[in-house]
Each structure stands twice: as structure tokens, then as C-alpha cells.
């Protein structure tokens, strides 16, 4: 069996209201993370899809989660950036240790 080399990174799971998603993504862009994953419509509302027309006016009334994996330094900076925001807005951040292979995908020059 071949050995896969794993590296330690930090994973941030940021859950915010739909209307605040853009702010979070903007912050991540400025932090210079190479990528992130967005999971939409956590609340169960709005997951009715097309046929019920719920989403018609309530696009902001859902929860989204952004998952980003990055190094310790960046993740700390991101948390510092999010702190004032979460003082006034609902949402949470979970920080966990995670291992990744293909380190180059998670680092920027």
C-alpha cells in the first residue's frame, strides 16, 4: 500500500444567514484563501425547490454554510475578522483540525 502524505490544516465552518453570505465570502477572498465550499439552504426552508415557489421572495431567509480549509495563520486572521461581525449578527463558526493531502490546493503563494 502506498503512503499518502497528510498535512495538518485548520477547517472553518461558518454558518450565517443568507443575506450575510456575501460579506463572509468577501472576507475570505481578501484573506487570500484559494477556495471554499458553500452549502446552501441549511434551515430546510427553501429546500422545497422550484415547484413550491417559496424561494420567490425569501431568498434571504435561509442559512448558508461556508467551509474553508487553510493554514493556522490564515485561519486565525479570518477569525479575527469575523469577531466583530458575530458580535452583531447571528451565526457560528466551528474550528477544527483537519488533515489534507494535496497541500498545494489549500495554500496560496
Amino acid at each position, binding site marked *: 500500500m502506498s503512503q499518502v502524505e497528510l498535512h495538518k490544516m485548520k477547517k472553518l465552518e461558518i454558518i450565517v444567514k443568507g443575506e450575510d453570505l*456575501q*460579506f463572509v465570502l*468577501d*472576507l475570505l477572498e*481578501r*484573506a*487570500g484563501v484559494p477556495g471554499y465550499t458553500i452549502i446552501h439552504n441549511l434551515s430546510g*426552508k427553501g429546500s422545497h425547490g*422550484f*415547484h*413550491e*415557489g*417559496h424561494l*420567490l*421572495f*425569501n*431568498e*434571504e*431567509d435561509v442559512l448558508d454554510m461556508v467551509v474553508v480549509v487553510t493554514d493556522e*495563520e*490564515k485561519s*486565525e*486572521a*479570518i*477569525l*479575527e*475578522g*469575523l*469577531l*466583530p*461581525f458575530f458580535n*452583531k449578527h447571528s451565526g457560528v463558526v466551528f474550528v477544527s483540525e483537519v488533515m489534507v493531502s494535496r497541500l498545494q490546493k489549500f495554500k496560496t503563494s
Partner: protein
Amino acid sequence: MSKLGERLKIRSIVFLAGEALPFFWPMRTFTSRNPLHGLRSLPFREAVKLGEKYFKGKAFLSREQWVELLKKGRIKEEFVREEFEKFFGDKELAEGFLRFILNNPKLSPQSVNFVGSGILKDFFKEELELSRVRERLLRILKEEETLSEFVDKLYGTEITDEVNERLIRFCAAFLDEGQAVFELPYREEGFFKAWQKLSYSKDVFDSSEDALVFALKELGIPEELWEEQLRLELFKLRGWASFINWRSSNKFYYWQQIYPVDLVDYLAVRLLTYIDVAKEEGLPFTYKELFRLVEEKTEEVFLRRELNTGSVVPELVEEVEEVLKCKNPSEYFSHYAEAKAKFLSDKWEGYLLKLKEEGKLKIDLPKLYKLYRRFEEEEGFMWLRALERSYEERLLKGIKQNVDKVKKGEVQALFCIDVRSERFRRNLEELSDRYQTFGIAGFFGVPVSFIELEKGHETYLCPVIIRPKNVVLELMDKKLEPEIEELHKVSEKILKDLKNNVLTPYITVEAIGLLFGFDMIGKTFFPLAYAKLREKLFPKKEPRRLLIDKLTKEEAVKIVETLQHELIVFALEKELGLKSVPYYLIDRLRRIALEEIEDGETAKMLGITEERLKEFIHKLRKVYKIDRGYQQLYLEKLAKVGFTPHEKAFFVENALKSIGLTENFGKLVLVIGHGSTSENNPYESALDCGACGGDNGIVNARVFSAMANDKKVREILRSRGIEIPDYTYFVPGLHNTTTDEVEFYDTEDLPEEHKKLLEEVKKDFKVAGRRTALERSKAMPLGDCKTEEEAEKFVKTNSVDWTQVRPEWGLSGNYAFVIGRRELTEGLNLEGRVFLHSYDYRKDPKGLLLETILSGPMFVGHWINMEYFFSTTDNENYGSGSKVYHNVVGRIGVMTGNWSDLRMGLPSQTVFLDGKPFHEPIRLIVVVEAPLNLVQLVLKGVQVVRELVGNQWINFIVFDPEQKKFFKYLSGDWKEVGV
């Protein structure tokens, strides 16, 4: 903390500071919104208080104006008395106060001159006690004034104005969209970097975040105050700040892409400018210094402010000036405090004695003073509630009479919920029983991204809170040509004409890009030259055809191929000077660029070197965007064109169900959007259809009608339980709200019988239109028309007169939103002031349609209502002042005079008549016809509406048709309302 962390943190803080800024939309799509939208999660009461702080805006009319409304009969005196009685808990007090107010509406303590006994001195002395003064000054320094304002009030300087002017000039220059003759250099580097280069000729700071943090630290502002201080700074030029906020959240806006700006940039420039300007004055200007001054030289600070804010006791002006010159304010202070206390005491004593006498009150003066101050806080709310209750009563009484009505009609007519439809609908119904009218949001439930031939970019025709997912294209003419050939012709035409223009290849490609200027990666493309060109290519004639069907994959591929083909022809001539290249070679080049084949012998075939071919291919990919990535993008964009039959059926079903029109269809169903016409009116958009994003509703009407007439759609609807008979035809129309004319479209394919019927309908509509115009003209200045003919001429003139500052009253006067069957309001003269949305609860067992109506159209109605409300209570601070002084800035907005903040809100002419309020500020009275428990269920699921109701931004009333009772939401509970 790392550098990055610090930068991200300041971004976060600026974001929070900017949240209270009102939304901004460029003038060309003016949309009404609640100026206090950023504060909507607060109760109305708290929000307006903050509004006073940030906007310096009043939320209530003056006492004089309230009394006038009462004297005009708009407010029932009984309700005012009730409100007063509730407040005082005492009939005599209430009566006394009321009598005094009615007799002296203009009187205030400030306007009284009286020499009194000093009986109220103690109250004021308490306030003027040194430690209290210090406390107050500290609070002002920390959270009520910017540093520049504080300094100005301290030393009589004009630093704030100077900073404002410099910022305005720079903003106007930087944010210019192609109008300016002289272009600001360095714009591509961003707002802050450009300013930095121009001010310091070098890069002092690496980023605007660094600069802003530096400035805040330099000014010694403690970190916990950063957010509030930055917010105060933003509000000094809230128009420009709001615009910058809008720009930074629209990353794909063309101008934002090339010349980026955001609030951090703006604040960095602002604070550094303040530091520069203040340093020149040579006075204390940092937070640290000012804090010290307040702590250690409280008396001096106080006295200086008294002078500079005009609060000083008039007789003591010279004395105070002397004291400040001689620098012994601390000794003088207690003497001044005593004098001021007496001064204020005298004014109040004079005022309250009058109140006591005329009101026949038996209460001693100190008690009366305390009571009056409490009363002052509450007064505005009391009048407001009395006004609202007066309107509620009138409306509910009318509705109660109609509770048992049921109506059917030969011809159904769908109008927008806009208040202006009410007059027309009423006149039409009175004219003939054959018409059954319905109210629905003017986009008919179909959000559309529309690409008009002349415009070449996407316009969202739907309420601003939604993003449409389908694109509708306008095609050249109504001949039945296969779409592909037509699109092919168009692209050819564009390219031919562009060749003779000085546009660069970049613009050319973008311009043609995706045939009709689809937003590339979602951006709006707006260069003036290109827009002008398109207008020349497609002069407006008669209405064109709309493409609302989906393209097949083959069609889409063919379109993209055609486009690429044309581009290569263009490129061959421009780059290589080659003309008339055979088709097969062009195709080869295309496929090489797309990496589908190798280039092989192509260079030889073209008669050029391999080098040049490589170069050329490279150009095709980079400049002309013929590559795999863009190919995919184009196809994705084209996939958004049109609707599938199921999508069409979905929209039609939803719309019809939401208004309760699912059976008994007549021969004609008229689908009538609305728009207005005026000349020389930057606010034109405000008079158009809000539900269509500030545009005219005809496109949505045509799209909806086409969908509803589609045979396949009707099949699907049938399978879902809605049977539209074959003899029913949907016909789109446009109601011009300035002239009350209605024009019908797409009528060529109607059968003879229907055409005849339509002719009769047109006659009826003409009569109804004239009656409506006559009604409306009575409310307009110079509109005293005696006959319908006169009225018709009058309104037509208004629409084309470019000096007319008030082409129509628009939505002025709006006060209520009724959701229910038309029968409830039929026959009631609502004076064109009520939004009417048809709704049949029996067709909505789960309440989903009601949820849609409340969170969509009703929400937009609330925004409109709030815009008019605040623009009336304080036109200078919440509205945009007089139109007469407006100067249009590019296509963004208006300023007052030559250099001012960007104005937001409505101009005075929209809400005032001869200096008096024409619009009456009333929080929207929403009436819903549905069982109470259904409404409660729906509210549970819609937070935005629940918030509005709970925080008292709207008055929410339910008419339960099963219990036949009215319920109002009051202080957390549903209370039955007797009518």
C-alpha cells in the same frame, strides 16, 4: 494580531458601520425604499430615534401640521382625545392640553418672552451641574458627533464642510461614468490608491485598511468606539456613502470592475483628509486631545459650544466672549449656569402658565413641567396613531358593508396593485358590470431579465428584492422568421456597423458579445458610446417580438458558432488584412481556437507564416474570446433564455391562484401593466412600476399573456386542475398613469369575435380613462377641469411638458394595502390611495400564496409607504429637497446645487403642495381577508413580515371571513376590533 488579521478586522467593523446606510439605486432605476431599512429589526420607536441621530431626521410632522390635519377632518378629534386620555390617565388633563394645543399650534417655549419668578430654575440647574455637563459632553464626543463636528462646535471652524467638499469633489470625479470631460488619473488602482497618489505623490500606505487603522490610531480613538465613530463619519455624506456601498456590492457592474471602490477606501480617505484639514487649523483635533479638554476644561468647552451652537443666553453673548478671551471660564461658569437656568425657567414658565390657564389645569408648575416633558416625547406617536385610527375606521367601515358581495364578469382585467390603479378600476366597474377587475403585483409574478434590442444589457423586470432566472430577448420584427436566421442577421448588422466605428476590439467583442450584450459573467456593460450606437442601429418603431421559448441545444450551439464565425471574419480583416476568406477556412480557425483540431496546414492555406498564425490564434482566444471557457459561458447564458412549458405553467398557475382567478374565465382576460411618461424628469423611474424594478410593466404583461395563451401551457394547467377554456384569450395592455390611457398589444392574432369585443372594451376604457383623469386633475394645481375633455388635454400636456415638476401625483397619499377579494372594496372611493391585491383564501389552504404576497408585494408596498412617510416628515434630511435645485450627476443621482451629498428619497414636489404636506404620513394599514389562524400560521413562517408587524412598522389587520370579525395586532396580541 497579524497584519492580515488586523486588516480583516477593520473590514468587518466598517461593514457593521455601513449597515445602517440606506439602500441606493442609480436614478435610472429609482425604487422606493424605507430609509431606515437598516434599522428595521428595531421597534419603530427606537429606529426613528436612531434616525434622528444619524440622519438628523424628524419622524413626525410639526404640531402645527398635525392640527391642520385635524381641522381638515383627516384626524378624528375623538381619537386624539382618546390617545391623550390614555397617556395622562386623566380626562381633565387631556382636555386641557388638547384645548391649549388646538388654540396655539405654533407656540413653543422657545418663542415665548416672559419675565418669571424662576420657579423652574432647579430643573435646569440640575442639568447644568458641572459633572452632568461633563458626562453629556463625553457622551457627545464618543457617540453623537464626529471629531470634526465636535471641533467645529468648539471653535466655530468649518472643518466638516471643508472635508465634505473635498470628498464630494473626489467622489464625483472618481465615480464618474464617462460624462466628465477631464478624467481623473490612476482610477484603475482603486479609490484609495488613486487618492493617495494624487495627494502624496507616493504610496504611503499599502492598503486602505492600513491607512484607516493608522488614522484611527493617530486620532487616538479607542477601539471600542471605532464602529460608532465610523458610522457617524459615513452619515456625514450618506448619499455618496450609500452609493459607494451599492457599487462595492455589485462586483460585476462595469464601472466597479474597472475603477473599484468600497467603504474602507472611502473612510480611509475621509479620515486622512480630516487629519490634513484639522492640522492646518492648528487647534486640538484628536480624540485624545478633545477628551482631555472635556475632562479638564469642561467649563470652557461648554461655554464655547453654547456660543457656536446658538444656545447661549442672548444677553450674555458679549460677556461669554470676553470670558473665553480672558481665559477664566471656570470661575465664570457657575454664574452663567445660574443665568441660563433662569433664562430657560422664564421661557418655560411663560409657556406653561399659558397652558395652565387655557387648559384650566389645577397642577403646580414644577409638576406640569415634568409632565410636559414626558408628553413631548410621546406627542408625535399619539398624533400618528390618531391619524392611523381615523383612516382605519373609514376603511374598515367601507369593507364591512361589502362583506357579502360576490361578483362574476364577462371580461377579467388584471391591474397592478399600485394605488393609481384603484381609480381606474373603480371607474371601469361603475361604467359597466361586465368587468371583473383584479389586483396583482405589476410584474404578474413572472420575474424576467429583459434584453431590449437598443439597450444590449439585462434589465431586471421584477421587484428589486428578487433576481430573475430567465432571460427574455426582444427580436427585430414580428415576421415569422426562424429565430436563428434572425439572430444571425442581427449579429451581422452589428458587426458591419461597428467596423466603421472607432471602438476598440475589446469593446467590440464585449459589445457584440453573446449577440445582445448579455452580461459577461454577470456584469452590466454600459459604455456610453456603445449604447448610443445600438440606439442608432435599432430605432424604435412598432413593438417587436419577444422570445420566451427555450432554445434547443442545437439552436444555441448554432448561434454561438455564428457569432464566432462573424468575429473571425472581423478579426481576419482587422488583424491580418484578409478579406473574403472561404467558409471552410474560417471554420478551421474557429476549431483551432477551440482546441478541437490541430493547426496543420492552415497557415499555408491562409498564406501567412506559422508565427503569425500562432499570434492570430492567440488573439482570437484572448481578445476575441473564442475559447473553450467562453464557449461554455455563452452556452450557459443562452440556456437562460426563455422558459420551459412547465416553468411557464408554474408562473401562470401561481399568479392565477394567488389572485383567486381559477375558473369562470371570460372571453378576454386583460393583463394590464403600467408606466408613466414625463419629460426632463430624473425621477421618472419613481413614477413607473415598482414591481417591475422601476420600469414600465408592458414586457411582463406581454410575457404573461403569451404564456397563458400557449396551448401546451393550458394542457399542463388542465392536468393541475385549472381549466382555461379555448375561447379565452389573454391580451396584454399598458396603463399610462400620467394620461390614463390604456393601449393594448399583440392583438393581431385574435379571432374576429374577440377583436370586435376588444373594440368595445377599448371604447369603455377610453371613457373610464377620462373619468379617472378628471378625478385626478382635481387634485393637481391648475387642474380645475370642468369636463372630461378638458381633463384629457390637461393630463396629456403634463406628460410632455418638460418644465412640469409634477407630471402626476404618483403614489402620494398611499396609506393602505388590502389583500383579499375585490368585492370587499368594490364601489368604495379610495381616492387612488390604496394598494389592492386580489386574493382568495379558499384557494390557498396551506397559506403559501399568502406568504408570497406578504413577503413580496406587501413588503414592496411597505417600502414605498415608508419612503413617502419620511420624505414628508423631513424632506430635507430623508427626502431630496426641491427639484428646482437638483443637478443630475452622471446617471447616478442628483445633488442640490453644485456640490452636495447625493440626495436620496423623494423631492419636495412629490409630497408637498404649496409648502404644506400633500402626502399624509401613515404607517401602512394592511388588511388581509383570511381566517385568523391561517394568517397566524403564515406569519410564523415569514420572519421579515413578522418583524414588521411585531416592531410596529405597519398596522396589521385581519378580516376573518368565517367569523366575520376584524382583528388587529396590538402589543403582541390579536385584539378584536369593533367596526
